[in-house]
């Protein structure tokens, strides 16, 4: 197991280099000029050149990238061009918001998706059809649109949940949870649909296996057959899907955070991109990449735990 983890961590280093390099190159191709954005047309040419030098924008992209990597190795992600704030500090403030949303959305998708999937696999055709339709609709509806509809109903019409904003957990756990209810539901909808379909197919397939018939003949209760044996048999594909949903939520959170005005990484990404705040964009890309690597590592470890063949190989 340790070898597996070490191998995966070692493989993530070149991935980080590739992602940061690609981000650097791509952002350098975007038209625009952050120094001009910051200074406006009133600045003198001398002020403009001085700022470009201060921000190292006068350097070739490769030199900027090298300096950036050296900074990262020393734990320095740079400072925002516009706010002057330390990027690492900014990410530290905003990452818990995004992770609250993503983890909440993934857990909700897992709970509801598994329940729906199992029910549809074991409770007859009508529920199976419902899951089919729900998978189609849930996968097709954009999460930001779902968010707007939820806000219109539960915040504006019913007035029971906030339309916007985020309350830190340490300020009030109840308000924190309240501020996340609608965003989490909006983010989880497509995940619920996907998991429900995967679980239904997996459970149905497992239930048709010979060993299940044997267990049934041996008098094992149906509840144990479904929740212990059939579900475990489909757990590898379920873990894969959950990992994919988690990673997809990283991009999904960008729109959901903007709909509900949550101060997470997603809304920061929109602002930073619009302003070409290069250090912040780089920091976000790095954070997203690290989260993705960690999630993939956890998925690999889960494979090994669930399937002894993986451990042996």
């Amino acid at each position: 197991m340790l070898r597996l983890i070490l191998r995966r961590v070692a493989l993530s280093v070149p991935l980080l280099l590739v992602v940061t390099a690609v981000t650097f190159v791509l952002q350098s191709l975007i038209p625009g000029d952050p120094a001009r954005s910051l200074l406006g047309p009133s600045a003198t040419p001398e002020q403009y050149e001085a700022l470009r030098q201060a921000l190292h924008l006068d350097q070739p992209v490769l030199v900027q990238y090298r300096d950036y990597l050296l900074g990262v190795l020393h734990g320095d992600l740079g400072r925002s061009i516009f706010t002057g704030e330390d990027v690492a500090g900014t990410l530290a403030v905003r990452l818990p918001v995004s992770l609250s949303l993503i983890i909440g959305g993934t857990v909700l998708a897992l709970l509801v998706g598994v329940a729906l999937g199992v029910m549809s696999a074991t409770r007859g055709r009508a529920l199976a059809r419902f899951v089919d339709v729900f998978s189609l609709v849930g996968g097709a509806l954009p999460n930001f649109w779902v968010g707007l509809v939820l806000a219109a109903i539960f915040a504006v019409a019913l007035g029971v949940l906030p339309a916007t904003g985020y309350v830190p957990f340490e300020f009030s756990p109840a308000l924190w949870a309240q501020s996340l209810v609608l965003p989490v539901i909006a983010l989880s909808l497509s995940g619920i649909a996907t998991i429900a379909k995967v679980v239904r197919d997996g459970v149905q397939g497992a239930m048709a296996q010979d060993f299940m018939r044997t267990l049934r003949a041996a008098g094992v209760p149906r509840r144990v057959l479904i929740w212990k044996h059939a579900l475990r048999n489909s757990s590898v594909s379920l873990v894969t899907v959950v990992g994919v949903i988690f990673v997809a939520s990283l991009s999904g959170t960008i729109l959901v955070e903007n709909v509900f005005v949550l101060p997470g990484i997603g809304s920061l990404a929109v602002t930073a991109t619009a302003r070409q705040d290069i250090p912040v964009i780089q920091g976000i890309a790095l954070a997203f990449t690290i989260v993705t690597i960690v999630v993939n590592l956890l998925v690999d470890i889960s494979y090994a735990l669930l399937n002894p063949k993986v451990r042996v190989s």
Partner: protein
Amino acid sequence: MTRRHLLGAAALVAAAGLALAGCTGTSSGGETPADRTLTVAVGTPPVSLDTLKAATGVPGTWFETPAYAAVLTRDADGQIQAGLAEKWGYVGDGNTEFEFTLRDGLTFADGTPLTATEVADSLTYFTATTTGPTRAYFAPMTFTAVDDLTVHITSAVPNPIIPDMLTVGLLGGAPISPAGIADESARAGDTFGAGQYVLDTAQTVSGDHYVYVPNENYYDQNAITYSQIEIKVIPNPQQQVQALKTGQVDAIVGDPSIGGTVTGGGFQEIHQPATVYNFYLMDRDGKVVPALANEKVRQALNFAVDRESIAQAALGDYGTATDQTAIDAGPASGYDAALESVYGYDPEKAKQLLAEAGFADGFTIPATYLGFSPTDTTIAQAVASQLAEVGVTLDLKSEPDFGSWVNDLVSGNYAATLLTGDGSQMYINAQFAFTPNAVMNQFGVSDPALNDAFQALATATPDQIGAAAQAVNTVIVDEALALPIAANQSIIIFNGDKVTPYYLGSTGELAPIETWPLK
């Protein structure tokens, strides 16, 4: 799991949700009388909290005025009143020497003494260093501390609005503490003023929400209305409306898309002409487009656009067609109702003038605009379409971000650009767009009639300013130095049961948020 289990789990989730909602249910408009907080929403975060880089106008100054007190203030009628200074005035004639005397015993929010030395140092630093939109207006001035409380200003050119420049609206008149001057990077994310409030950095998340709490060192504690001011960044106007309706914010900056949509339940709306959408005809010497050097051609462009239809299409009920760069905001704006009839929509007259100028076959004007703004895009394309009817091609370049637009502007390749201009002060309006060193006069065109009229305005006494400003405006309109389209209104939508935003009587400027009366 049985159906009963599942139903039980569902009931548990529903109960938890309701319990959460019940814990601290959001109000839908009403607040308790003891609530002395003010929460407002804006669409975009500030470029910087640094007054040297911040935007002027609404809502740019909302992030600054709570924390930065100015040398002078305005009363509800817009008249200049005491601020940090209790006495002020020009010295002699000619509008080049000015002096003000500070209150005794002032301090910055951090407790540092605020004397004439600190104020003169701050003004000098601002003038030398700012890259903001007010740089040009402060540039000719020098500041000297005469004694502990007196600051003397010398302006290399006559300036009739020095008192206005020392209010918080143009940012430079609000002193920065020595600690702030010493740490440029810190000013981007913190405040260093002597205002009623200070930024609470612990509660603030940059780019999302900004929280201001009372400044214990403010000289007039009785003037502090709110226990906390919070400015939330909510990008989408519809989300702002939702936040207002659910009581999460008390006021929002509206736009034509949501104007008039929030009614009843104590919600109110106020609006006032604030800016003008102008195509600035920068190349009036004809370096890129020779035709633009001809006054008849510029007049023809003004006759060729149907301002009424463009204003209605782009701004709805909140737009007013105008052929002036000035808005009706008091004598200093130079607005003249009589000038509104100079250029009616008359394509035939436009064609005739083009023919008389020798451009009957038309010509092309390369122009740039802020393509990320839907309103700017609508106006730019509508103007291009109408100019095409008289044979003039407006070759538009849509820029996706502000920095690219600035690059276009300074490149010297574009003869015209669309931008909103503040038409409330002709002295500023002219220096923004028409005098030889104006920002929007990138080709450095010098117009003798304009220069003479501007010089008269610069040296005018207070009772002469109205007529002098109108004289400048007349030159701008008669010589068609710009192609104004429509006046745009500032819109504030608010919970009238909580706060009362208001516009200043004589200037039409929105009162700073910290001065809005609490119900």
